[in-house]
């Protein structure tokens, strides 16, 4: 009864990318099937062994030795990814109570539920690196770890729910599909699963906008307004331009990242132009035009000063998003404590029974 019963057009968003996810999944299976060389030899140091595994496109698994910086980078990246899923529930959750039809309400509820699931899945992947979920949640609540800048923008109309699906989930997929081939096994496997669902969400978002763009004048205006507000924040999701990106080079060498921020941003723009045309909506960039030489679209860069302001905590909703999460956590403390106390009592009673 989710109502996901529309047929996607051939060139629907996510179509080609989903193929890449499946290819990555096949490659993962092949890599697992290939006899992996057993641990490092007696004369070999761990670093050389680690480099070998990366070179051979094999996966690093939790019990393998890894450089401390590799572990730290992965913890930071996977945790921020998990936090983004959890904070990302808020802007969309904002419209569950007001969704304009029961079918849309059901789809939105299911989507936000999926996001919580992605968050749990990613926290579990991060835990394989030797940190607990409770610690990670503390880091988020204390503001010591970040989440995606995009979720600091408000959802002002129903069309924003569609724009988030199409653009925000679209950008996330473009970013995450290469991570399906990332060198750390648990993260790669998480990304395969997450990308499949995200691609589904993206299609649903696109469908919301498509319906609005082909609806009444007021609905079409609502759709255009949402695109106008979400376009540049979505482009900024790929991070600072390559020249200013601090983690990129090392992450690429470790095969955590496979493409640069600017490469992925370009891929996203090229993908969106045709889709916006099908919607009959205008991308709010007067500088957008096809470049025959580059075989790609030229476009106007997002305002990176704004991106930095939002990342540092001064976006429109940063305070609200954090306060909301902190409040939910604090309000729920008595419930979590009760669950622990109940479990302890049960365990004690079981022991008494066994002893008697």
């Amino acid at each position, binding site marked *: *009864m989710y109502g996901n019963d529309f047929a996607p057009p051939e060139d629907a968003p996510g179509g080609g990318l989903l193929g890449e996810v499946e290819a990555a999944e096949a490659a993962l299976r092949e890599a697992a099937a290939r006899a992996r060389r057993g641990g490092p030899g007696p004369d070999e140091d761990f670093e050389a062994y680690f480099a070998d595994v990366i070179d051979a496109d094999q996966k690093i698994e939790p019990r393998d030795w890894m450089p401390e910086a590799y572990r730290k980078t992965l913890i930071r990246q996977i945790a921020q990814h998990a936090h983004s899923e959890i904070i990302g529930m808020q802007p969309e*959750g904002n419209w569950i109570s007001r969704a304009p039809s029961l079918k849309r*309400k059901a789809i939105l*509820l299911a989507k936000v539920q999926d996001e919580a*699931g992605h*968050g749990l899945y990613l926290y579990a992947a991060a835990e394989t690196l030797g940190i607990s979920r409770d610690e990670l949640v503390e880091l988020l609540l204390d503001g010591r770890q970040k989440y995606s800048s995009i979720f600091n923008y408000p959802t002002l109309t129903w069309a924003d729910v569609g724009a988030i699906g199409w653009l925000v989930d679209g950008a996330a997929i473009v970013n995450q599909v290469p991570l399906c081939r990332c060198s750390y096994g648990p993260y790669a496997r998480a990304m395969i699963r997450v990308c499949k669902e995200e691609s589904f969400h993206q299609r649903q978002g696109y469908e919301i906008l498509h319906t609005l763009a082909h*609806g*009444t004048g007021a609905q079409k205006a609502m759709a255009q307004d949402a695109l106008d507000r979400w376009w540049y924040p979505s482009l900024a999701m790929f991070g600072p331009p390559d020249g200013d990106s601090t983690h990129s080079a090392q992450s690429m060498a470790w095969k955590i990242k496979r493409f640069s921020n600017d490469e992925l941003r370009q891929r996203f723009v090229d993908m969106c132009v045709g889709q916006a045309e099908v919607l009959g909506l205008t991308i709010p960039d007067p500088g957008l035009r096809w470049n025959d030489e580059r075989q790609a679209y030229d476009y106007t860069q997002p305002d990176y000063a704004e991106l930095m302001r939002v990342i540092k905590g001064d976006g429109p909703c940063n305070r609200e998003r954090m306060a909301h999460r902190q409040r939910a956590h604090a309000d729920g403390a008595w419930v*979590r404590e009760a669950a622990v106390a109940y479990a302890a009592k049960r365990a004690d009673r079981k022991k008494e029974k066994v002893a008697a």
Partner: protein
Amino acid sequence: MSGVFDFTLALGDDALIAAQRLGEWTTRAPEMEEDIALANIALDQLGAARLLLTYAGELEGAGRDEDDLAFLRDDREFRNCLLVELPNGDFGVTMAKLFFLAAWQLPLYTALAGGGDDRLAAIGAKARKESAYHLDHASLWVKRLGDGTDESHRRMQDAVDQVWPYVHELFTSDPAAPVDPATLRADFDATVAAVLDEATLTRPETRWTPGGGRDGVHTEQLSYLLAEMQVLHRAHPGASW
């Protein structure tokens, strides 16, 4: 309440309003697993509501679909029981509401599944499986909170005291309905007594038996709930979404 249409509409409204309240928990639950569980239960209730309201619209024969019934009726036309429209309160109040609702819906849907109306039987067969899960989930939390810490025991007992009077309305006798709600009482009482006992909780003595939901006479809460739920739909008459 009488007849299949009124009965179906009332059950659909119960499920719809319950879903709306549960949906309010999204991003606010005490732990992430519970966020997922509450959204899941909200989704089940919404799914049942859609089937029931669609069928009610067909029975009525006036061309109203699920969205017309959900978004274009005022609170005086809603037929849900008062229990589901009560505000969420704290997590204990929400679990008390869900526990009593599920303990009622499970035998109700089970009876419907074996009844003579094919559509209601099909809906009952689907929904009773979900209700069994809701009942299990809520029972576990009632026990955890009731038999957890002193604080959680106090809050859970408060929640039961607050919500208990509204249970009465669920069993108002209606011999003309496809399932007479009065016949569900014994089953409900047995379920509730076992769980509350294990949770070290007591049922309050009460003479107060609020009702009126089935006649469209609600608490002051429903109008606010509907204002929020219907705002966008009503702002764009005739639009598709």
